[in-house]
């Protein structure tokens, strides 16, 4: 057993670790918290009565969500004319919101699948809530293409179902690919999330004293008992689900981008779209993960589990993907100029100096390209307020980006006589705000009823989980809390 290694793993705080061994890794769970502390703290969020702020927050978000649902009902019963869509802008806030929400989901799958395959153990503190965020974002996303078709009761035409008209969908259409991509993405995310939840539901089942909760957690935990013969298959299933989700998440936003890229409109008809959209999705999604987790961490005192190191790493991913996005924006301009196509050149000139000029200057340039560059600096990544400010910029900036791509591509048609602008109606605005309400309400319900950190996974990031672990003073590492259990 390597004594130096284990000693340095166990030291508290970063300064001490740096003094002892310059290259020592900072522990993922701070203050030598043991397994039972982790169980207690994470389950406590679900088991303690709902704090007052939760009721206040939930009342507000649920009211907003209800009004959003009312707007959807009004739109469905009256018609798509209640939105500001008209010729030439036939896609506007609806598809902007769709791409915005589906993009947010991508960070959750990146954390749960891609970082798992890359053996990034820090993901264990954040993957559960990020995956939940994915599901809720995809629910919000699915609303928009569902209702924008107008007659939602005809939506089954999208599915390849035998019908008495003998009509089948055109499987070569990106819109049909989209239906398959998004529904597969949602289903696989649910399966992955639930598989991860089973051991934690068993923890809640074993802790609760309430009969109803014991029954419900018992049902959903499927009788999980932590047997290694079960863990063996479970780990293989988890690995394969991660392996399947990795190409899936890259494909979903690629397929979303095909909706635009296979058209012949200037600014849409480009081959750069799939990687550009995927990078943007991860960029926007990580900003949303931090937007949700920074307050949750403070409220539930999870500072030892979601440490400054985690925030630092997420900030670096935002910097990386934000730089991809900035590169893609630049390349679009270069290709527009280099192509020599006058429509393409005009469309990009119009993007910066046309009627939606400030969307580009504020949203794309400032929020998406410049603000994440702050994360080159260590103190910016460690300052919660700077991180939160950048995340808010990115959240807004990514919405603007999708608006510019969609409406910017449509409002200047090839013939000036068909030019027009998009003016949102109150239904447009409140449907979007309503989905923000649905998203936050679902997230609030999630943190009330399910463990927001994957307990069985975060425990593997504690040094005592290693079978070659020995405590620094050479004694047997009796559950690092120190006390011999009786």
């Amino acid at each position, binding site marked *: 057993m390597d004594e130096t290694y284990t000693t340095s793993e166990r030291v508290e705080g970063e300064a001490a670790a740096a003094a002892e061994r310059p290259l020592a890794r900072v522990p993922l769970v701070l203050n030598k918290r043991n*397994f*039972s502390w982790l*169980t207690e703290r994470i389950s406590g969020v679900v088991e303690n009565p709902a704090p007052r702020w939760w009721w206040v927050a939930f009342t507000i978000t649920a009211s907003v969500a209800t009004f959003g649902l009312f707007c959807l009902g009004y739109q469905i019963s009256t018609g798509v004319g209640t939105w500001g869509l008209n010729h030439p802008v036939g896609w506007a806030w609806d598809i902007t919101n769709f791409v915005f929400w589906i993009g947010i989901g991508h960070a959750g799958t990146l954390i749960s699948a891609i970082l798992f395959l890359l053996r990034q153990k820090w993901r264990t503190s954040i993957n559960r809530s990020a995956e939940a965020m994915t599901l809720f974002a995809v629910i919000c996303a699915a609303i928009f293409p569902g209702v924008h078709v107008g007659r939602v009761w005809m939506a089954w035409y999208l599915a*390849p179902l035998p019908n008495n008209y003998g*009509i*089948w969908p*055109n*499987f*070569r259409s990106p819109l049909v*690919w989209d239906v*398959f*991509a998004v529904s*597969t993405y949602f*289903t*696989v995310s649910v*399966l992955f999330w*639930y*598989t991860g939840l089973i*051991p934690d539901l068993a*923890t809640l*089942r*074993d*802790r609760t004293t309430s009969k109803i909760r014991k029954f419900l957690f018992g049902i959903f935990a*499927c*009788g999980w*008992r*932590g*047997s*290694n*013969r*079960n*863990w*063996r*298959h*479970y*780990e*293989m*299933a988890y690995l*394969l*689900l991660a392996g*399947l*989700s990795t*190409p*899936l998440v890259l*494909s979903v936003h690629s*397929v979303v981008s095909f909706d635009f890229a296979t058209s012949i409109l200037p600014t849409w008809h480009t081959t750069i779209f799939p990687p550009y959209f995927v990078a943007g999705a991860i960029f926007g999604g990580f900003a949303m993960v931090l937007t949700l987790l920074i307050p949750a961490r403070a409220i539930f005192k999870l500072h030892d589990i979601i440490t400054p190191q985690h925030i630092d790493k997420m900030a670096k991913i935002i910097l990386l993907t934000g730089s991809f996005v900035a590169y893609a924006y630049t390349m679009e301009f270069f290709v527009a100029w280099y192509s020599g196509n006058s429509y393409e050149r005009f469309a990009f000139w119009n993007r910066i100096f046309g009627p939606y000029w400030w969307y580009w200057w504020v949203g794309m340039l400032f929020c998406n390209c410049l603000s994440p560059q702050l994360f080159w600096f260590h103190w910016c990544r460690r300052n919660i307020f700077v991180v939160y400010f950048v995340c808010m910029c990115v959240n807004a900036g990514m919405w603007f980006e999708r608006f510019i791509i969609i409406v910017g591509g449509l409002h200047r048609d090839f013939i000036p006589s068909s030019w027009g602008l998009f003016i949102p109606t109150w239904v447009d605005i409140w449907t979007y705000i309503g989905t923000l309400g649905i998203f936050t309400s679902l997230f609030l319900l999630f943190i009330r009823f399910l463990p927001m950190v994957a307990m*069985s*996974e975060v*425990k*593997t990031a504690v040094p*005592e*989980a*290693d*079978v*070659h672990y020995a405590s620094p003073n050479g004694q*047997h*590492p*009796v*559950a690092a809390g120190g006390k011999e*259990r009786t």
Partner: protein
Amino acid sequence: MRTPSGHKVYAMAAEYPSAAALYEAAKRVRDAGFRRWDVYSPFPIHGMDAAMGLGKSWLSGWVLFGGVSGLLTAAVIEFGPSSILYPLDVHGKPTNFFTVPAFFPIMFELTVLFGAFAAFFAVLIMNGLPRWYHPMFNWERFSRVTNDGFFLAIEARDPRFTEAGVRDLLEQSGGQHITIVHEE
């Protein structure tokens, strides 16, 4: 095997203070030649499969089967309507098998979808879950298994099981709170 009080015995079990101790104990039990036994822990312990003498999980076979069936399903539901039942002439492009790139996204999605369903159902079925009841839950201390408890149980139906021998083995390997677990 029954206890003097007439209860049917499921296993003899012990608790261990840490993952490391459980790992060492598992190696001893494996080397003693037991077949029907198991260890229980709050999280998957890295290296435990080898310590228990278990090989690779072949759950992956089911996932391959699921993925291939998804791919074939997609091929049938796409080419059936597009080439035979309802050929749509879009931009004058052919609808036969040579235009497979346009049909590929849905094939990919269904491969992933069926593979994921296979992984999910295979992990439940191969583990015999959902299961309403298990004898280990009769042991009061066992409720810690989902918190911070590490347990090892050797089943009574193992041919090498003798009460004295197993108790000795568990004691020597550092087991604490050694107990008989009843079947019901």
